[in-house]
């Protein structure tokens, strides 16, 4: 099996805070991490390869410093790392991102399984996974929290998807794109040997010239159908908290109950 994991390098959220006085984002210091959902995708890829044989390739499109996140994934056990980095790729929306990642998967000779996270913490759209599936004509399996079985011989995969109304068990033909939820596994830590190996392995840095048959008009900012018009701060919740206090906890709970009934909330 050839499993391709797509990961995104995202700003660490704990460092994105909101200043209600000035209405701006505060970021203390800098730092990027592997998108948290993608950690589960990496782990799942490694487990699949351990069980069924084959290899895992990790791939990201991003600025040059995203190499750091690729190396982390390689230290966890991914054999090969591809960094798609070029000015032509910058400013891509989800359409252009899925287009570029799909072209890169083709350039790798295809995949039996593509793993993504459910959603990136910054852009927050969850659109790239289904986009790749559509570009490559693969089955889109989203919100997966358990892979029940993979049968390379019959070429099918059975997964459990966590939807709002319940759990759906689906069988789909391979190759497929799976986007994973957090509950699917517990990601491993890189081993010291893994770290050493990752440091020594040459990362492949690809530009548009490495993607055969690509249409340059479909890349990056110029290939993106959507455009950010404006970015602004959300309205801060009005008013402060009203505390029910004084007296005993019983009287506070009584007063809160009265309030919830008066507000017609219960």
């Amino acid at each position, binding site marked *: 099996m050839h499993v391709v994991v797509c990961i995104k390098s995202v700003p660490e959220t704990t460092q994105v805070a909101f200043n209600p006085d000035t209405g701006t984002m505060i970021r203390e210091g800098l730092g990027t991490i592997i998108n948290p959902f993608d950690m589960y995708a990496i782990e799942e890829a490694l487990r699949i390869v351990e069980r069924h044989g084959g290899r895992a390739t990790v791939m990201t499109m991003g600025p040059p410093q995203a190499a750091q996140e690729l190396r982390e994934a390689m230290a966890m056990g991914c054999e090969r790392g591809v960094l798609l980095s070029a000015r032509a790729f910058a400013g891509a929306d989800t359409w252009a991102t*899925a287009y570029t990642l799909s072209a890169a998967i083709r350039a790798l000779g295809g995949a039996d399984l593509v793993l993504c996270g459910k959603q990136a913490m910054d852009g*927050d759209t969850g659109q790239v996974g289904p986009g790749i599936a559509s570009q490559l004509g693969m089955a889109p399996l989203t919100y997966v929290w358990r892979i029940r079985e993979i049968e390379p011989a019959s070429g099918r995969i059975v997964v459990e998807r966590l939807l709002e109304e319940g759990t759906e068990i689906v069988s789909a033909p391979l190759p497929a794109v799976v986007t994973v939820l957090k509950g699917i596994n517990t990601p491993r830590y890189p081993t010291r040997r893994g770290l050493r190996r990752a440091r020594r392995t040459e990362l492949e840095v690809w530009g548009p010239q490495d993607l055969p048959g690509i249409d340059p008009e479909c890349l990056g900012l110029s290939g993106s159908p959507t455009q950010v018009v404006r970015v602004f701060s959300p309205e801060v919740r009005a008013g402060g*908290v009203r505390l029910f206090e004084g007296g005993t906890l019983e009287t506070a709970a009584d007063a809160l109950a009265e309030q919830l009934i008066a507000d017609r909330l219960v």
Partner: protein
Amino acid sequence: MSSGILIIDKDLCIGCAACVAACPFGALAMEQGVATVDERCTACSACLEVCPVEALSLPTRQADLQPPEARGVWVWVEQAGGVAHGISWEMMGQGRRLADGLQVPLTACVLGERVRDLAMEAIAFGAERVLLVEHPELARFRTETYAAALEQLIEQERPEILLLGASSRGRDLAGSVATSLHTGLTADCTGLEIDPANGRLLQTRPAYGGNIMATISTPVHRPQMATVRHRVFAVPQPDYGRRGEIVPREVTLPPASLLSTVLSFVPASDEVNLAEARIIVSGGAGLGGPDGFAPLRELADLLGGAIGASRAAVDSGWIPYAHQVGQTGRTVRPELYIACGISGAIQHRAGMSTSRTIVAINTDPHAPIFGLATYGIVGDCQQVVPALTRALRARL
């Protein structure tokens, strides 16, 4: 020398360095009193907002291109077993407003097996036209078949706007259709307006876990597609006397052998159906252990609510992941969210901060959750929650 994608107007720049601090990727720096950007810029737009003099911008593309001929506003009516998802009618209200603004018809797309009743309902909720596709293969939602059907309708009629719910089905379907048709898709919108200058759809949505809002447009590609967040917009009053046209349509679906098949479906208990719950009682590390959820369940039972949890409670193994609310869990928007023994970390807030009313119960008066809450009680939730249940039971 700037090599990033960001455009910096050096004449406007006052050298305040606010953008340098705001850049998550370290791509901005000050050189001789003005900002410069290097190749680490990802065009994430985080700096645009902090610049006090509007010296920063991203290149606008396709300025000279015109969109193709396209007309009409469409809403996809999401349904399961012939019952419409709440988001469908919420969108119908918005679709009506947009269509009136543009002076074009509002069309509902009803796809399924025996769903003519839904077509009538769509008219009551505001559509003047319904495209009705009935096919046995559409009995159960599957992205591949629904996408094939919807794409064919779009290619025949070329609408200018298509709205879908930001539910798990709607997002999958929208992502697939937008990719095949090569058009823009804006995720999880909480605001939809028409730009009076050019008739484009201005789609506003939260990003960065709700820390910023972005307004997105699709200037040249059609249809302009958006998924719409559930419980943001009001459901319009249905008018069952309204007249409308129901247009049956045939579609060609891909051969079943190529598709995924649903083997079974295990419905969630009411307790974990967080998306539909009007009331969520949620517990965190402050509950002290799995048994700490017992009084919360009692309260939720009384109110007909669901049970949520913080990651700390989930990671301790006190409750399954399906209950987790937050950045790596679910995003919820109930009428009432009762947070018990939850500190209110930013990743938790990302999943619940837009709840209509938030009640916080916490022993620490300085817990950040109180900064967000509407009502609060400082106290031990093992005492406060049962007291609240008793107080409510006595009054309801």
